[in-house]
C-alpha cells in the first residue's frame, strides 16, 4: 500500500507537471461535486472518471480558487474528503482514499506550529518590512524594524517565502523547526531596477516613461573630475560635449535636443532633492582681450576672458563623483512633468550616498594621482616657417613681375628672401612655453554607518588639477554630511548637507596667442624681459590683437565658488501606506571673481586694442535659493490586481541674487601691488540684486492593473514671478501607459522572454530659465548733467507666457534570456511652442524690441539602448552597454517680422537660426574650390565685386573662389554651409572581469555633425606673418595641384571669414575612458585586516578616429547656447588624462 501511495504521488507530480499550464478558477458554495467537475471540465477539458457511490458519500463542498493549477484545484476540492485522484492524460480518475492513521504523510490534520525568527542582510543588519508568506496559503506577515517576524498556527512543514525589493527572494522549508533566522542577499540586478523619480522612487518595471540610469560603478574610477563629463556616452538621448580642456571645465549637455533660445538648455539637476540649475556665473570684467581667432569669423572678438570663463567655470564642478549613489536621467514628459516649468530640457536626478542602520562604521579612502597631456595643434617650426614665408615672398615677387604693368619687387618680400635672419633668428617653440603636462591628485575619504535608529554618511574630498596651460588650475574641497534619525517607528528626521569650495584659475588666451606667435621671434629679450611682438612684426593690424603669449602670464583670472546644498526633512508615516514628508532645503552659492590684466597686455578698446596701466576687477555674486516642500506619498496594494502609488505635494521656492563688481586702473606693478586699493583710478562700479519665486503643486499617480497594464498621470501647476499676473500660472499635465506583454498568458510561459513592455506617453513641460522681470516696462538708473536720471531700459510684454513643450514618447523595453540581454527602443517628438525671443516693435514706441513668445522649435529623435551580459563564467565576465541616439531639430517658426526683415535668417556669429532648418546651422560663404584654369580666373575676376575694386590684384590659378550672388551684385553669397547637429551619436561601454581584475572601456562616437574650425582660417594664407599650422605645407602649387589649400602669397589673404572650407565633418569615434581595476583577494585582505582594497589605472581620450583636421572634434565654444557653441576657437587645448589610484575600505 505504501508503494501504491508513493507511486500515486509520483504520478500525480508528473501529471501536474504536464498539466501545469491548465489553470482553473472556481468560486462555488455548497456545490455538488458533479457541478464542480462540470465546471472544471468546461475550463480545462479534463474528464472525470469515478464510481457514483464515491460522490454520494462525498456530498457538497465550498471551493474558492483562482488561476490555480488543476492539481491544486483538485486538492482544494478534496481537502476535507476521503478522495484521492490521479490525472492520466486528460482524464482524472477518482478513488476512495485509503486512510492509514499511522502514516504521518497523510495525517488528516497537519500539526500546527508557531514560528518566529529574524531576517538580516549580508552585513548582519536587520531587514525591516520583509514580506514573509506561507507557500500555498494566504497566511503571511512582515518583519519589524528589528527584522523580526512571527507566525502562528501554520503547518509545521510549510514553506516560507521571504521577499523584499532589492534582495533575492528566499524559500525556506520549516521541516518542523519553529525558529528561522535567515540572511537575504542583495540582488544586484534587482537593485539597479529601482529608479529615482521626482519626489519618490519606482521599480523600473513599473515605469511608463523613458528614464536612463547611469551605473555609478562604471564611472567611479574614471579620470573625470566632474559629473557632467562622466555622463558622456552613458545614456541614449543624452549628448555631452566637453567645452574644452580647462581644468574642471564644463560640458554641454543636451537631453533630446535644446528648446530655449534665450535661456540655458542644460537639464535641471536635482541633487539630493534640491534643484540646481546650471548657469554662467561670469561677471563682466573691465578689461577684455581680443581673440585673434574670432576676429576671423563672425563671432564677438572681445571675449577671450569671458569665453574662457564660460567654458572653464562649471556649476556642477563642486560635486565629488565618489559621493554619488545613483544617477537617473528623466527624458520623457511622463517622467519629467512633475518638475513642470523647469523640465523641458530633461531632468537629471542625482542621489548621494547614505549610511545604513546597524552597521559598523565603514571607512573608505580613495587616492589618485594623474597626469594630463594637451592634445595640441601641430605648428610650423622656425625652419618650416621661414621656408613658407620665403615661398610666399617669392610667389609675391613673381606675381608682381608677371603683372601688367609690371610691378617692382616688394621690398619686404625681397628682404625676406635676401636678408638672412630677416624674420628673426630665434627658434621658439611657443606651445612648449605655454603648455605643460598637468599634474592632478585627488584624495577622498568617507565614513558611514549606523546604530539602531540612526545612520550617517560623511565624506571629505580634496582635488587639485593643474591645467595644461601654464597658470590654470582647478581645486576643490567638497564633501557631505548626512544623518538620518528614526525618532519613533513612525517619525524620521533626515538631514543632509553637500558642500564644496572650488577655485578655478582660468586662462586669458595664452594658448590662442601661442598658435600665432612666429617661431623665429624670441620669447624674451636678452635682458630677460618679455619680447613685445607688435602688429608690425606680423604684418598685421593692432586691432587683430596678436601679442606675445608670455605677456599674458602675469594676468590673473581667478574664481572661488562656495556652494552649499543643505536640507532638513521630516518624514511621518500617517498610515502604513501613507507617508508625509516636509522638507526645507537651501541651495546657496557664493562666487568671487578676481581679474587682473597687466599693463603690458593689449586689451580691447573702442579703437581696437590699447595697452593701459593695468586693470583689475573684483566681483562677487551670491545666489540663495530656499525651498519648502510638503509631500504625501500613498503606496497601496489593494489586491493582487490593483496597486497604486500616489505622490502629491507643494513646493515653494524663493531665489535671491545679488552681485557687485568694482574695477580700478593703474597699478604700481603687475605682480604684487595689484589689489584694488592700489589702483590710481577707480572705474565705475556696478551692482544688482533681485529675486524670483515659484509656487508649485504637483501630483503623480502610478496605477498598476493586474501587473500588466500600467498608468501614470502627472500634473504640476507652477506659479512663477517671472511672468505677468494673468499668465503666471502654468499647467503641465502628462500621462503615460505601458503594457507588460510578457505578463500576458500567451507570453508568460515563453521562458526566454523576461520582459516585453510597450510604453507611450505624452505631456507638457515648460522652461523658465530666463531672466527675471521680462514682462515689466523698466527704467534703469543713469546720469545726465551730473545728477541722477531714470531712463527706459525695457519695454514690457504684458502677454509674456511660458514656453511650453509638448513631448510625445513611445518605446519598447525588452529583456531576454534570463535578463542577460536587454534592449530599449524609444521614439520621441518634442515641440516647443512660444519660445521666448527678441521681437522687433515699431520704433515709434521708443523701443526697438521686446521679449515675446514667437519661435517654435521641434526635436524628434530615436534612441536605442542595448545591454548584454555576454559572458558569465566563474572567472570571466563580460558585459556591454551600447546606446545610439539620433536627434533632429527644426526651427518651425520665428516671428514673421524676422522673415520680413532677414529672409527668415537670424545670424548669431558664425551660426544662424533659419526657419525650416535644424538648430546649429552654419551660415556663410561657400567655398567652391581653387581656381584651376586661366578662364576660371578671368571669369571669377569679372564677376567678383571686390576684384573689381582691386582687392585681389594677383588673382591667379591656385586661389580659392567662393559662391557669388553674381551677376546681380558680385558680392559673396551667404548660404547654409554646414549643420552642427550630428546624424547620430552615442557610447559603448564594455566591462570585463577576470578573477580580481576588471576593465571598463567607454567608446563614444558621433556621426555626421559639422564643426566650424575658426582657428584654422588663418592657416590658409599668408595674409599676415603669424605662425601657421603644418597643414599649410600641403598648399597648392603647380607641383601639388590637387591641394584644397590655396597657393600662398605674402601679405595676400583671399580667404573670407566664415566660409565652408573651414567647416569640417566632426564625426569621430574615441576611446573616451578606460579603467583597469584590481581588487585584492579576501585572503590578502584578511591578513592585513582591511575590508576591501583595490588599485586602478585609468585614462581618458586615449585615441580618436576622425577626419577632423583639428586637434579634437569634440569641443564647444559656448556650452549654454543652442544657437551657437559649434565652433572650435582653440581657446584651450583638450587633454588626455592618465590616473593611477588606490581605494581602501576598513
Amino acid at each position, binding site marked *: 500500500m505504501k508503494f501504491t501511495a508513493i507511486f500515486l504521488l509520483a504520478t500525480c507530480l508528473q501529471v501536474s507537471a504536464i498539466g501545469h499550464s491548465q489553470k482553473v478558477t472556481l468560486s462555488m458554495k455548497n456545490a455538488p461535486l458533479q457541478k464542480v467537475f462540470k465546471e472544471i471540465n468546461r475550463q480545462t477539458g479534463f474528464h472525470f472518471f469515478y464510481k457514483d457511490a464515491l460522490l454520494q458519500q462525498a456530498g457538497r463542498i465550498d471551493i474558492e480558487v483562482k488561476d490555480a493549477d488543476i492539481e491544486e484545484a483538485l486538492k482544494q476540492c478534496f481537502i476535507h474528503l476521503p478522495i484521492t485522484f490521479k490525472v492520466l492524460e486528460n482524464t482524472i480518475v477518482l478513488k476512495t482514499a485509503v486512510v492509514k492513521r499511522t502514516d504521518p504523510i497523510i495525517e488528516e490534520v497537519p500539526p500546527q506550529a508557531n514560528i518566529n525568527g529574524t531576517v538580516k542582510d549580508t552585513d548582519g543588519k536587520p531587514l525591516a518590512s520583509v514580506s514573509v508568506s506561507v507557500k500555498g496559503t494566504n497566511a503571511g506577515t512582515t518583519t519589524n524594524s528589528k527584522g523580526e517576524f512571527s507566525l502562528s498556527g501554520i503547518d509545521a512543514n510549510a514553506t516560507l517565502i521571504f521577499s523584499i525589493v532589492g534582495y533575492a527572494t528566499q524559500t525556506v522549508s520549516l521541516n518542523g523547526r519553529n525558529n528561522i533566522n535567515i540572511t537575504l542577499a542583495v540582488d544586484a540586478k534587482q537593485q539597479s531596477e529601482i529608479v529615482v523619480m521626482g519626489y519618490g522612487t519606482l521599480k523600473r518595471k513599473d515605469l511608463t516613461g523613458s528614464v536612463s540610469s547611469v551605473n555609478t560603478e562604471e564611472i567611479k574610477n574614471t579620470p573625470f573630475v566632474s559629473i557632467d563629463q562622466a555622463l558622456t556616452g552613458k545614456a541614449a538621448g543624452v549628448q555631452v560635449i566637453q567645452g574644452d580642456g580647462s581644468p574642471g571645465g564644463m560640458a554641454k549637455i543636451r537631453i533630446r535636443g535644446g528648446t530655449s533660445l534665450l535661456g540655458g538648455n542644460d537639464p535641471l539637476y536635482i541633487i539630493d532633492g534640491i534643484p540646481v540649475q546650471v548657469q554662467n556665473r561670469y561677471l563682466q570684467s573691465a578689461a577684455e582681450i581680443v581673440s585673434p581667432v574670432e576676429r576671423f569669423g563672425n563671432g564677438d572678438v572681445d571675449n577671450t576672458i569671458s569665453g574662457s570663463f564660460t567654458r572653464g567655470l562649471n556649476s556642477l564642478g563642486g560635486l565629488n563623483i565618489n559621493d554619488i549613489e545613483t544617477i537617473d536621467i528623466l527624458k520623457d514628459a511622463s517622467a519629467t512633468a512633475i518638475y513642470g516649468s523647469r523640465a523641458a530640457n530633461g531632468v537629471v536626478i542625482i542621489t548621494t550616498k547614505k549610511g545604513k542602520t546597524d552597521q559598523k562604521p565603514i571607512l573608505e579612502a580613495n587616492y589618485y594621482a594623474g597626469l594630463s597631456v594637451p592634445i595640441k595643434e601641430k605648428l610650423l617650426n622656425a625652419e618650416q616657417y621661414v621656408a613658407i614665408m620665403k615661398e610666399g615672398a617669392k610667389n609675391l615677387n613673381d606675381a608682381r613681375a608677371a603683372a601688367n604693368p609690371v610691378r617692382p619687387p616688394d621690398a619686404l618680400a625681397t628682404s625676406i628672401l635676401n636678408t638672412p635672419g630677416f624674420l628673426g633668428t630665434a627658434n621658439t617653440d611657443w606651445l612648449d612655453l605655454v603648455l605643460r603636462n598637468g599634474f592632478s591628485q585627488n584624495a577622498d575619504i568617507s565614513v558611514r554607518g549606523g546604530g539602531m535608529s540612526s545612520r550617517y554618511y560623511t565624506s571629505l574630498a580634496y582635488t587639485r588639477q593643474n591645467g595644461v596651460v601654464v597658470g590654470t588650475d582647478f581645486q576643490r574641497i567638497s564633501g557631505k554630511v548626512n544623518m538620518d534619525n528614526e525618532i519613533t517607528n513612525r517619525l524620521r528626521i533626515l538631514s543632509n548637507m553637500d558642500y564644496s569650495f572650488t577655485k578655478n584659475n582660468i586662462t586669458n588666451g595664452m594658448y590662442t596667442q601661442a598658435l600665432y606667435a612666429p617661431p623665429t621671434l624670441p620669447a624674451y629679450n636678452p635682458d630677460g624681459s618679455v619680447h613685445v611682438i607688435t602688429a608690425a612684426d606680423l604684418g598685421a593690424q593692432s586691432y587683430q590683437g596678436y601679442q606675445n603669449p608670455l605677456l599674458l602670464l602675469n594676468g590673473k583670472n581667478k574664481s572661488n565658488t562656495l556652494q552649499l546644498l543643505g536640507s532638513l526633512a521630516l518624514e511621518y508615516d500617517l498610515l502604513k501606506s501613507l507617508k508625509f514628508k516636509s522638507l526645507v532645503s537651501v541651495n546657496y552659492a557664493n562666487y568671487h571673481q578676481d581679474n587682473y590684466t597687466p599693463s603690458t597686455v593689449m586689451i580691447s578698446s*573702442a579703437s581696437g586694442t590699447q595697452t593701459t596701466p593695468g586693470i583689475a576687477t573684483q566681483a562677487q555674486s551670491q545666489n540663495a535659493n530656499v525651498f519648502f516642500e510638503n509631500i504625501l506619498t500613498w503606496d497601496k496594494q489593494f489586491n493582487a490586481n490593483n496597486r497604486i502609488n500616489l505622490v502629491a505635494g507643494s513646493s515653494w521656492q524663493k531665489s535671491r541674487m545679488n552681485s557687485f563688481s568694482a574695477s580700478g586702473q593703474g597699478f604700481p606693478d603687475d605682480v604684487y601691488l595689484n589689489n584694488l586699493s592700489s589702483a590710481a583710478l577707480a572705474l565705475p562700479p556696478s551692482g544688482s*540684486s533681485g529675486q524670483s519665486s515659484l509656487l508649485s503643486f504637483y501630483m503623480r499617480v502610478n496605477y498598476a492593473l493586474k501587473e500588466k497594464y500600467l498608468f501614470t498621470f502627472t500634473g504640476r501647476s507652477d506659479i512663477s514671478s517671472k511672468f505677468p499676473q494673468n499668465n503666471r500660472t502654468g499647467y503641465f499635465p502628462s500621462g503615460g501607459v505601458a503594457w507588460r506583454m510578457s505578463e500576458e498568458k500567451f507570453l508568460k510561459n515563453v521562458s526566454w522572454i523576461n520582459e516585453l513592455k510597450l510604453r507611450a506617453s505624452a505631456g507638457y513641460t515648460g522652461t523658465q530659465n530666463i531672466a527675471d*522681470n521680462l514682462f515689466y516696462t*523698466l527704467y*534703469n538708473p543713469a546720469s545726465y*548733467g551730473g545728477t541722477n536720471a531714470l531712463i*527706459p531700459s525695457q519695454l514690457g510684454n504684458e502677454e509674456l507666457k511660458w514656453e511650453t513643450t509638448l513631448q510625445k514618447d513611445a518605446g519598447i523595453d525588452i529583456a531576454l534570456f534570463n535578463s542577460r540581454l536587454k534592449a530599449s527602443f524609444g521614439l520621441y517628438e518634442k515641440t516647443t511652442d512660444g519660445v521666448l525671443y527678441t521681437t522687433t516693435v515699431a520704433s515709434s514706441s521708443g523701443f526697438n524690441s521686446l521679449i515675446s513668445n514667437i519661435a517654435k522649435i521641434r526635436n524628434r529623435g530615436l534612441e536605442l539602448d542595448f545591454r548584454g551580459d555576454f559572458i558569465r563564467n566563474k572567472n570571466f565576465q563580460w558585459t556591454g552597454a551600447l546606446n545610439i541616439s539620433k536627434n533632429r531639430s527644426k526651427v518651425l517658426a520665428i516671428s514673421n517680422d524676422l522673415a520680413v526683415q532677414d529672409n527668415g535668417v537670424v545670424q548669431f556669429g558664425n551660426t544662424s537660426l533659419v526657419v525650416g532648418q535644424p538648430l546649429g546651422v552654419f551660415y556663410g560663404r561657400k567655398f567652391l574650390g581653387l581656381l584651376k584654369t586661366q578662364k576660371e580666373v578671368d571669369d571669377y575676376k569679372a564677376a567678383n565685386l571686390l576684384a573689381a575694386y582691386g582687392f585681389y590684384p594677383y588673382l591667379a590659378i591656385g586661389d580659392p573662389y567662393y559662391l557669388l550672388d553674381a551677376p546681380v551684385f558680385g558680392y559673396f553669397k551667404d548660404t547654409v554651409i554646414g549643420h552642427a547637429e550630428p546624424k547620430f551619436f552615442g557610447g559603448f561601454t564594455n566591462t570585463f572581469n577576470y578573477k580580481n581584475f576588471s576593465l571598463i572601456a567607454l567608446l563614444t562616437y558621433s556621426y555626421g555633425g559639422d564643426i566650424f574650425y575658426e582657428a584654422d582660417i588663418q592657416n590658409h594664407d599668408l595674409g599676415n606673418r603669424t605662425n601657421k599650422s603644418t597643414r599649410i605645407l600641403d598648399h597648392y602649387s603647380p607641383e601639388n595641384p590637387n591641394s584644397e589649400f590655396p597657393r600662398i602669397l605674402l601679405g595676400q589673404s583671399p580667404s573670407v571669414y566664415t566660409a565652408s572650407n573651414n567647416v569640417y565633418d566632426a564625426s569621430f569615434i574615441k576611446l573616451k575612458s578606460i579603467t583597469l581595476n584590481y581588487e585584492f583577494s579576501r585572503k590578502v585582505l584578511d591578513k592585513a585586516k582591511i575590508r576591501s582594497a583595490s588599485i586602478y589605472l585609468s585614462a581618458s581620450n586615449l585615441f580618436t578616429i576622425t577626419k577632423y583636421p583639428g586637434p579634437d572634434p569634440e569641443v564647444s565654444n559656448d556650452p549654454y547656447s543652442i544657437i551657437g557653441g559649434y565652433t572650435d576657437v582653440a581657446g584651450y587645448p583638450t587633454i588626455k588624462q592618465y590616473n593611477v589610484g588606490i581605494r581602501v575600505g576598513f
Partner: protein
Amino acid sequence: MKKLFIYIVFATAVSTQQSCKKDLNALPESSRVAESVITDGKTAEIALNGAYYNFANANPRKTSWQYHELPPACLAGYMGYAFGLLPEEENMNASLAFTDYWGESYRLLNTVNNALKGISSLADGDFAGDRKKEIIGELHFLRAYAHFKLFSYYGVWFDINSPLGVLLRDEASTKANISKARSTVKDSYDFILADLDDASANAASARPNYYATKWAAMVLKMRVLMSRGAAGDHAEIITLANTIIQTSPYQLEPNLVDIFHSKGLASNEVILGLKPQANQEQDYYSRSYQYWPFHSAGFVAKGALKDLLTGDPRQAWMIGSANPYSAYSPNTFFFTKYMIENGTPTTVSETYYAIRLSEVYLLRAEAIVRSGGSLATARTDVKNVMSHAGVIDFTAVDNAGTPEDLLLQIYYETVRNLVTEDGQEWMALLRLDFNTVKLLKPTITKKEQYIIPIPHSEFVYNPEIGDQNPGYDK
C-alpha cells in the same frame, strides 16, 4: 493625530499662500517699473532728468547729437562726409545714410509721457512752490521739441491742409498701444503749440541752461509758428521775440567764437544746450575727433560754406585746412567751429547747442519781413547779430532792398551763424521761395525732397500708421 495633521497642513497652506503672494508680486530691485518711476517730488526730478538724458540722446559715455547738427547742414549743402558723398549731400532722401530722428525722438517722447503720467498722480504738495507745474512745463517743452523735430522731417509741415502730419505720442508705450495712425498737419501743429503754450506759461524762468526754461519754450514756439506761417503767426513771433529780448536774462555773446572755443554753456547767449557727460572728451569716437582728425568717421565743411564765409571773420575759425582725403571729397575742409585742428577735445568742444539768442533776432527779422514790416528794423536785427560775430562790412544786408533779397540775406546769416547746431539752416532754406531753393541747392528738384520717408520698418510693425510721405515707398 490625523486631525492634528490636517490642521497643521491647512494652517501651513494658508500662511504660505499669503507669503507667496507677496513674493510672487515682488518688484525688481535694480530697476524701476515704469508705473513707479515717480513716487514723490524728488523722483519726479529724476524722471525729468531721464527725459533730458534722452533729449541729449545720451549714453553713459557721451551725449550724441550729431543727427541734429550734421544732416541738416548736409541737406542744405554746407557740410559733407570726408571720404565721399553722403546721400544727404545730394538730397537723395529715400536712402539717407546718416539721418534718424525717428528712434531718438520717440525714445524721448516715451520717457516724457511716462513722466507726465507719473507726475499727474502726485499732489501739488509733494513739490516745493510751483515746481510741479514747472516740471510739467519742461516735459511739455521736451514733448513739443520731439514732435516738432519729427514733424519737420517726416510730416508735410509746409501744407496745413495735408493729412500727413506727425504720429503723435501722448501716452507711455505699452505693447498694446504701439499701433497708431499719424495725425493731420493741422492737428500736429495744434498739439505741438498746445504743449508749448503750457511750457511758455509754466516752465521755470531760471534753470541751468542745459535744462529748458519758459524762454526756450518761447523760442521753440517761434520756430513752430515760423514753419506754419499762418495768419497772425508772424506777429506772434515778433511779440515772443520782443519778450525774450527785453525780459529774458540772455545776452548776445560779444564775440561769437568765444561760445564755441572757450565758453560753451557758460556763455550768456545759450538758451538751451547739452552738457557733455563726464569724461566725454576722452571718448575715442567723440564728436570732436570726427571733425579732426577723423576717428572712424570724418565730417568736413564744403566749399559752399567756405565761400559763404569769404570776407567774414568767422571763416578763420570755422574753416580749417583742406581735407587730406580731398581725392574722395573734393573742395572740402576741416570744420573747426567746435574742434580746432591739432587740438584735444574738451568739454567745450563736446558741447552741443539747441537754442541761442542769435536765432531769436534772426527769426524776428524774418517775421518782420514776412509780415510786411519795416525792412530797416529787420536789417538792424541781422546786423546786430553779425556784428557780434565780428562782421563790420554790412554791404550785402544794406543792399537788400526787397523783402526777397533781405530774406535771402537773413538766410545766409542763419547759415553762417547757426550752421551745424539744430538744423535752422535747413529749415530757413526751405522757407524761401521754391525756385530760390532749387537755385541754392540744385540737387533739390521736387518739394518732396523737403522731407524724408518714414522708416520702412514702421509700416511693418505699425501698419496703422497710414500713408507714406509723397514720393517715397512704404
